[in-house]
């Protein structure tokens, strides 16, 4: 009895991931659902452009969630599902833009801003006025006479 209980405890996590769920009319395991959610979170809903496919209530987003789940159940890789979406909607569908000639400036912008900041800092520092020239002998004598009187 004790051994059986232990076995059940060990098997519980596996059982949980093998649990069958239903989402958007597709039947899949919990592990598959988690994978599908992860993919949907990275894709932009084309209708409400600042929402992910996973978070949007638009009809198109629902249809795309169904397609993602069907592909996951069919055993397709995350990459091939992403490629399916990019082929149809372009890279705009990816919430995280990939590094490409189109996005070089975007990804370089933090470093450009840093360089600009350093350049501004350097320029302001070196443009501080130079110290006044030392007093000449006659100046010092004048100073002496002024302070003594």
């Amino acid at each position, binding site marked *: 009895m004790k051994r059986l209980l232990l076995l059940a405890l060990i098997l519980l996590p596996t059982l949980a991931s093998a649990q069958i769920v239903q989402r958007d009319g597709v039947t899949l395991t919990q592990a598959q659902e988690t994978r599908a959610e992860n993919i949907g979170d990275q894709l932009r809903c*084309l209708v409400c452009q600042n929402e992910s496919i996973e978070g949007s209530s638009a*009809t*198109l987003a629902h*249809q795309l969630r169904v*397609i993602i789940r069907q592909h996951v159940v069919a055993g397709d890789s995350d990459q091939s599902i992403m490629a399916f979406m990019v082929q*149809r909607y*372009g890279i*705009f569908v990816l919430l995280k833009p990939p590094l490409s000639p189109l996005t070089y400036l975007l990804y370089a912008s933090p470093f450009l801003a840093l360089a600009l900041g350093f350049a*501004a800092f350097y320029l302001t520092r070196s*443009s501080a006025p130079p110290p006044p020239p030392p007093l000449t002998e006659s100046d010092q004598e004048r100073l002496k006479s002024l302070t003594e009187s």
Partner: protein
Amino acid sequence: MTTRRNLLNAAPLAAVALAGAGFYTILRRMESNDYDPHALPSPLIGKRPPPFTLPGTNNQPGFSNTDLLSPPRPMLVNWFASWCGPCAQEASTLDILAQNGLPIWGIAYQDTPAATAAYLSQYGNPYARLAADSSGLTAINWGVYGVPETYLIDKTGIVRWRWAGALTDQVLLGTLGPMLHQYA
């Protein structure tokens, strides 16, 4: 020394002025329908439409991608729906184009035959061929993300242009007209 300092002081002002000019240009172009920040470039441009076969609706035979391989002249494929407001807005524009001899093939998106029939009798039927994508799955393969969407297909069957949203007079004069001329 002071000129350099003045230059540095002027830099933020110049940046603000530049940004202001940029925003002004964007807003002006949005106002005149020249530029839509929500519009997406279609990955279908430069390619043929993906394989599909759609049934007809309202006693029409429907069509498939093989019917679009080499049209005798440039043509439009127009995705529309009876429940779509901007579709009714562009209906008169489509009618004018059809009357001037431009072939327009329509695809009713997620619609019922009865609703499509009622819509066409109310707003006019500019379509030379009419098919129905009731599931909306062919639309996904085309990259359609809303209705109306209009695709220009040249004589070699290649998609040259996609417009998401209603076809206005500005779009007609500014973009579609020159494109039709180019691919005639």
